[in-house]
């Protein structure tokens, strides 16, 4: 779970992290104000199945594509990226077209996020 960009609201992301822990997942929390590169490096080194990024600043269209690119550049395009935040309907489709696996509105329930990860998150092993 990561916060990219400038907004300093990490309450939501922490709530989701705890819910995931309570659902039996191992969650690496990377803290506030991360760059897309930092998140990609952490995801690769930790060999995660899913990256959850929370962006409340409205800069999602500027921040998500570089994250997806940084993953591709590390041969890690198979790591699923889940985006949460204040995201207008039009942008959601765009983000999914760009390669985000799922987009959740800030108001989405924690259960919905946990449920999505349970159903789609765990990568099959080769």
């Amino acid at each position, binding site marked *: 779970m990561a916060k990219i960009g400038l907004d300093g609201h990490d309450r939501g992301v922490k709530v989701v*992290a*705890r819910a*995931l*822990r*309570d*659902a*039996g*997942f*191992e*969650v*690496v*929390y*990377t*803290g506030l104000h*991360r760059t897309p*590169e*930092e998140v990609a*490096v*952490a995801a*690769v*080194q*930790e*060999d995660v199945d899913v990256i959850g990024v929370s962006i409340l600043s409205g800069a999602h269209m500027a921040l998500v594509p570089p994250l997806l690119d940084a993953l591709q550049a*590390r*041969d*890690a395009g198979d790591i699923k990226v889940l985006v949460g935040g204040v995201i207008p309907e039009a942008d959601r489709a765009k983000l999914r077209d760009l390669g985000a696996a799922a987009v959740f509105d800030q108001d989405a329930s924690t259960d919905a996020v946990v449920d999505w990860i349970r159903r789609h998150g765990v990568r099959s*092993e080769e």
Partner: protein
Amino acid sequence: MRDGSPPAGAGEYRALSRLISRIENHPGAAASIIADLWSRTGRARRVGLTGAPGVGKSTLADQLITAARDGGLTVAVIAVDPSSPFSGGAILGDRVRMVRHSGDPGVYIRSMAARAHLGGLAAATRDVAYVLEAFAFDLILVETVGVGQSELEIMRLADTVVVVTAPGFGDAVQTLKAGILEIADVLVVNKADRPGAKETVMQLREMRRLVPHHDAWDVPVVETTASTGAGVADVWEAIRRHGEHLRTSGELEARRGRRAEREVLALVEAALASRVRATVHDRGEPAELLARAKRHEADPHSTAKAILERLIPPEGR
């Protein structure tokens, strides 16, 4: 050559990360992985960092990474955090403190949840340490919360154990009770900017006298403020001096020898136990003996002894 360049294969962190996951998720996979890379292990310096939750281990680790990088060493960190006993999940937060090294290809950081590892948490971390050695990191830092027995066991994989305390984090006596002081090669009192640091240092110096170190090494007590970096150079120097002591005294060989013996015996024990469990019900005398015990016709001790004699003939036969 220690020129600070990334280790061979560092570009393949993805491959390294996958290998570590396989060891974490499939204890059975470790055997062939370790056998394959064994010839490339044994060259890294292994340093353990342990202490109560929140004393500043990760912050200190972050500073030690910088010190090591300045000295031209590449660094891998294994950061172990506890798993929730209720859900089995975990929140792994050590990495947050070390993020500034993210763009440095000479630094690799991996979090591990303690889980209820099949082969034991210590076994999994030990194998991960071998993998990191094979990927040619010069320094391997292992961070664990110094509470449980398995966490203390992990520290046995280190050549040098740094025990971190801080003022206000339970008095030093509690640390002693946990059996942690006996394994310390370097004692750090972090958060020296907080009131009570001097007293903690004095308390530890006093206690260090009561717990003699097992070899001729005078355990230094070092004060740090990891959040600013103050005193970190002294910790780094203490670690360096301890490394020198290990080499010149022959203690390094001795420690590694003891470690190897323990590892082999633990693996033999684990394999034996699972073999016994898998076959004891099959048929023949052991199964009959077990059945009698289950019917309350024989006591557990005699039954165990009898089964063991069937499985492993006693000496002299």
